[in-house]
């Protein structure tokens, strides 16, 4: 009883009130928690920060990007796994959507839907989004996949144990299990070319120059100007992956 009375004494009340008031005053000087800032992408500030832009209005669906990517990066032609591929979306007049990607678009496309039934149709080239907050990197149990300082997501093929967890985690389906190397493989944005000052193979060989890659930190680069002047959109923005693959004129039907 005595102890309980002591804890409710006037002295203790003043002391506790003082501590509470002091903590409040001190806490008020801290910056407020901002959920938007907390979720924002932390980008490289010292060097380049690479991104990709694809102009849907220019893509003719020839599949050269998919073909050259396979040659440049030793991806076997068959079975049909891809680092970079093309899909054709066909929105029919009855509202249904048909998505095809025969052999990843590597042998071209043949429209099977009669022209009269088509409301709108277009090609969507796809590849790794090189997310700044990659879900695939977050799930790797051994640290075999990582984001470089320049914002390129890579795989260490000597360290990958082939558990394929990252294949499941990628919301864009950009990873596959390499049938010969028995490790997971994906687009490196032609890291070996970019480091030598070249463009990725798919960008260099695109006949209509529908694909651009470059430094998002440089306001004068082609890609920065492209993103500023077009109505660009990323895939699945609600997932907050920090995707850096920007599409011009993308339809909302594209997933």
């Amino acid at each position, binding site marked *: 009883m005595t102890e309980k009375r002591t804890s409710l004494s006037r002295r203790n009340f003043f002391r506790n009130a003082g501590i509470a008031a002091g903590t409040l005053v001190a806490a008020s000087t801290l910056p407020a928690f901002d959920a938007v800032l907390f979720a924002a992408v932390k980008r490289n500030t010292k060097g380049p920060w690479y991104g990709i832009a694809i102009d849907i209005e220019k893509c003719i669906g020839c599949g050269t990007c998919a073909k050259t990517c396979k040659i*440049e990066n030793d991806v076997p032609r068959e079975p049909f796994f891809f680092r970079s591929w093309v899909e054709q979306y*066909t929105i029919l007049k009855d509202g249904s959507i048909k998505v095809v990607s025969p052999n990843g678009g590597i042998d071209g496309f043949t*429209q099977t839907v009669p022209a009269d039934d088509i409301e709108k149709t277009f090609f969507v080239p796809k590849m790794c989004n090189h997310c700044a907050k990659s879900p695939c990197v977050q799930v790797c149990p051994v640290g075999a996949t990582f984001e470089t300082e320049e914002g390129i997501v890579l795989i*260490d093929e000597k360290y990958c144990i082939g558990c394929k967890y990252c294949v499941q985690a990628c919301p864009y389906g950009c990873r596959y299990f390499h049938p010969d190397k028995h490790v997971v493989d994906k687009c490196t944005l032609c*890291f070996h070319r970019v480091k030598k000052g070249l463009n990725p193979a798919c960008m260099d060989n695109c006949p209509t120059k529908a694909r651009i890659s470059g430094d998002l930190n440089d306001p004068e680069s082609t890609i920065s100007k492209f993103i500023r002047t077009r109505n660009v959109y990323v895939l699945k923005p609600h997932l907050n992956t920090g995707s850096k693959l920007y599409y011009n004129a993308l339809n909302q039907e594209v997933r």
Partner: protein
Amino acid sequence: MPLHLKRLIMLGVMIVLLFLLLKHLLTPASFGQFGHYRGKAIDEIAAHQVKFVGNTACVSCHDTIVTMKNEGYHSDLSCEGCHGAAYLHVDHPKLEKLFKPDSREFCGKCHSINKARPEKAITQQNIKDHHPEDKCIKCHNPHQP
């Protein structure tokens, strides 16, 4: 302290030491250099062979044909987009020959009629009806179409 407790503590210490030793032996030297990954992997990936050498390499021998191409509708095309990667050909031009596409299907990958292709951006032709018995390159020079 009872003997059984001493033994338990000793066993615990040995397990921790064994774990630290294994971790030291199994972790690659460059792991953690930049982040939770092997730092050397960056250099290994950057050292991969470049296979598409670019039009500048083609010009040094095939200047007339590249100039012809650059003056026509195909000026934006890269040589290797149709002919394939030339990294072996530039080193051994006599031994390693490049691919010369001549099939109707190859031209059709870009030029066959498809509503998804922007009409203004590319000439399209019904390749089933347009002189089906001949190869496209019989009439159209791919370097100056």
